[in-house]
């Protein structure tokens, strides 16, 4: 049993509960125990780095400090936004010692760059991918569009994850699940992210283009690793449909939901019952 640190972040406790459910169900299935970072806080998300740089570093720093304090060497951070903020914070603070000391002073806890931050794909690659061939019982049969968004791959020089144009990691995992990942150009286009509430109509447009492109290229599902992308592509579908002037039916699945389904978990365990756009598993799986 591998025991890893786990930072769910606020979205996974609320709007993206299905993500948390699928991550935990998948982890359990593959023999990984995820222990929450004690008394974790919000990473500050876009709001903090838009309005207050010092705060945008201090909030993630507290999380890292808490993980360090609990002796965690690796923490799994399924939310791409949190993953991004934690990684960038660690990078910036260990480039600039003055900034680090100021931040440690604000947080009141010591920091270290020894905590390894894993995004959902890295988590899957390291602890799950190897066992997939034996564990997949219900392989996919459809085309899927792997959508990485911005926060998993950029800034590349900090995150060093996959290649920043046309990344392949999720495609590789989906192939192991039996799906056929399509070659499409919107893998790392922005969905509108934080403009979701402030400027919903823009999100409808940006996410609308992504949904249209995936659908036109014949994908049966969009696969994501970010709750912001998911809520924009899934929960905002009525606005997207209005923008597109059409009723798009393509569901948006978290990577872990896809793994859970392919490994035979049901819609409760995989959390797909909470998706807004209906996940028709019969249409996606190999029959």
């Amino acid at each position, binding site marked *: 049993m591998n025991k890893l640190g786990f930072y769910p972040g606020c979205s996974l406790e609320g709007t993206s509960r299905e993500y948390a459910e699928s991550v935990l169900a998948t982890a359990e299935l593959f023999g990984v125990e995820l222990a929450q970072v004690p008394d974790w806080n919000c990473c500050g998300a876009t709001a903090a780095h838009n309005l207050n740089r010092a705060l945008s570093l201090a909030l993630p720093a507290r999380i890292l400090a808490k993980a360090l304090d609990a002796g965690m060497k690796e923490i799994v951070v399924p939310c791409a936004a949190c993953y991004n903020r934690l990684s960038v914070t660690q990078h910036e603070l260990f480039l600039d010692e003055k900034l680090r000391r100021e931040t440690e002073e604000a947080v009141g806890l010591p920091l270290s760059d020894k905590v390894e931050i894993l995004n959902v794909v890295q988590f899957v690659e390291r602890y799950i991918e190897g066992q997939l061939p034996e564990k997949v019982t219900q392989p996919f049969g459809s085309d899927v569009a792997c959508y990485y968004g911005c926060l998993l791959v950029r800034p590349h020089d900090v995150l060093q994850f996959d290649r920043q*144009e046309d990344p392949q990691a999720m495609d590789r995992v989906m192939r192991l699940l039996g799906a056929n990942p399509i070659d499409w150009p919107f893998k790392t286009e922005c969905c509108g992210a934080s403009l979701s509430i402030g400027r919903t109509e823009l999100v409808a447009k940006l996410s609308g283009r992504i949904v249209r492109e995936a659908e036109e290229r014949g994908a049966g599902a969009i696969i994501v690793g970010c709750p912001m992308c998911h809520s924009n592509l899934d929960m905002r579908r009525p606005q997207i449909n209005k923008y597109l002037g059409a009723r798009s039916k393509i569901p948006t699945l978290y990577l872990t939901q896809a793994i859970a389904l392919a490994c035979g978990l049901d819609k409760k365990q995989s959390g797909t019952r909470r998706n807004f756009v209906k996940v028709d598993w019969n249409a996606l799986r190999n029959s």
Partner: protein
Amino acid sequence: MARIGVFVCHCGENISSTVDCERVAQQAGRLPGVAFSADYKYMCSDPGQSMIKEAIAEHRLTGVVVSACSPRMHEPTFRKACAEAGLNHYLCEMANIREQCSWVHPKDEATTQKAFDLVRTQVEKVRNDNPLEPIRVPVNKTAVVVGGGVAGIQVALDVAAGGHKVILVERDPSIGGHMSQLSETFPTLDCSQCILTPRMVEAAQHPNITLMTYSELESMDGFIGNFNLRIRRKARSVDEKLCTGCGLCTTKCPNKKIPSEFEQGLAFRTAIYTPFPQAVPNKPVIDRDNCTWFKTGKCGVCGKLCPTGAINYQQQDEIVEVKAGAIVLATGFEVKKTDFFPEYGYGRYRDVITGLQFERLASASGPTRGEIRRPSDGRVPEKVVFVACAGSRDPAKGIPYCSKICCMYTAKHAMLYKHKVHEGTPYVFYMDIRAAGKNYDEFTRRAIEEDGAKYIRGRVSNIYEKNGKLVVRGADTLLGGKPVEIEADMVVLATAAVSCDGSEELAQKLHVSYDSYKFFAEAHPKLKPVETNTAGIYLAGACQAPKDIPESVAAASGAAAKVIGLFANDTLTREPVVARVNRTAPPIFSTCMGCGLCISICPYQAIDTEEITDRSGKVVKTIARINPGLCQGCGTCVSFCRSKSIDLEGYSNKQVYQEVVAMLNSD
């Protein structure tokens, strides 16, 4: 007993304004071994030189110290004066009391003292100087030109026209280089092949030129006038003497699906192939990596069919040793391939091509016979987007420099496309139009005004394929960065020009400097543009930096002029400042123990061993031997020698030691 003369120069007021020259001369006169001293306003003038000559004769001087400026300018002057008075050149030394003293210190007692100290060190050096003779070396009047593109061909023809032998070494099976791949040339739109192929033939037929194609430089030693080169003639598997170039083998070869290098992957070739129909020599080679015979031992069709029996599967690489007096590097450039661009699809879209590929599409001898058709489906493109600065001027991609040729060839491409596809629309994304050259700017204006190329000032962010079209996303910075999206049928990337594969290794073999982009470095960016920092090795064309055809040819003729100038001499003289292993009386012969450390560290491979034999011919000792022809006098062996058995002529350990002692004993 030494009888040294010291001559202190005022250099007008350059020295005397801060140094008391008269006192320096007086003090120097009291040094042991100094027989004469004097000061004078301009020592380099005619009266100054006469003063030195007269003093040598009158005082029977055995050495001279001229205390004046830097030796860089006037050491030859004073040494010549001494020689005219019958004193060996190398018994005259200079103490630099101008740049190293008067110019950098205020008028002060300490300044005069420093000048005197500098004089005293040179007196000690001269006391230990030995008479030396300059080394004379013959000049081998053969030039080796590496690279057979337009620059190399030009060098070869020019040097050959000067009456000297040239060996033209080319790595590929044919000479011709990139220019032979081009369709038309800017700014005249004359056909590239039509102007180049006659020059290729001329080079092949010139009695002074020896072509060595499919050959590479293996190693080099020696020095200006006397280079020794080893050239690897790669196994062609075809006997060039027997082959008539009939081409039967290439038509019958069953292995027909190998992407052609000459056609930039837009067409296929066979395993036995001639790169292009106008190749020189027009004789095929077998590409052993792709030949069925070499892979499986079966087939052998070409061998069976060849009417003259020229196919030779057993042929081996051959190392040819060549002696030459000069080397010219003309190895040219390469262009980045489309897979260099992640944002333009990592090379996975077949209709995104490089400028060089477009040249092949536009060429009458190319895979489409000059019709502009896109590679994926052969359709004539209705919209073509040309992207300038693809990789160039892009520090993030590691290529911050301008590739220089792209602005012009992109304008040419837009023009050629429009001339061939009247209904088509060429778009050009550019950052700046760099068209500095005779009739260049007029040419780009013609592309815009007469041929309707739509120039958009902005860079392309990304390209993707959709429904058989390529969506090009750019911006118009002249409209405030407004996004522009064009659905094109074909995209041509003016990819960056970079140094050739293998440039770094070649530069290291030849001891030639190169820049961080592995272009060869000229000796001086303005005044020595075709020389390298290694005497006798010259540069021509785009191996130095991106260059267009006129510039490459001009540089080639410049390099040829340098070679012919060098070959105007039968011998060259060299400074005799070389290392020497000491010799003593038997039974020791030399303090050298023959450990060989110097042999391994000598950067010029100038040291080998020598056996000392007794009268009966028995070897009694093996010691190091330094070839004075190869030694560059760097002194590395001197400092490494554990038994202090090596000295540098004119700078012996003893001399340097005495100089230092004299400096430290100043009072």
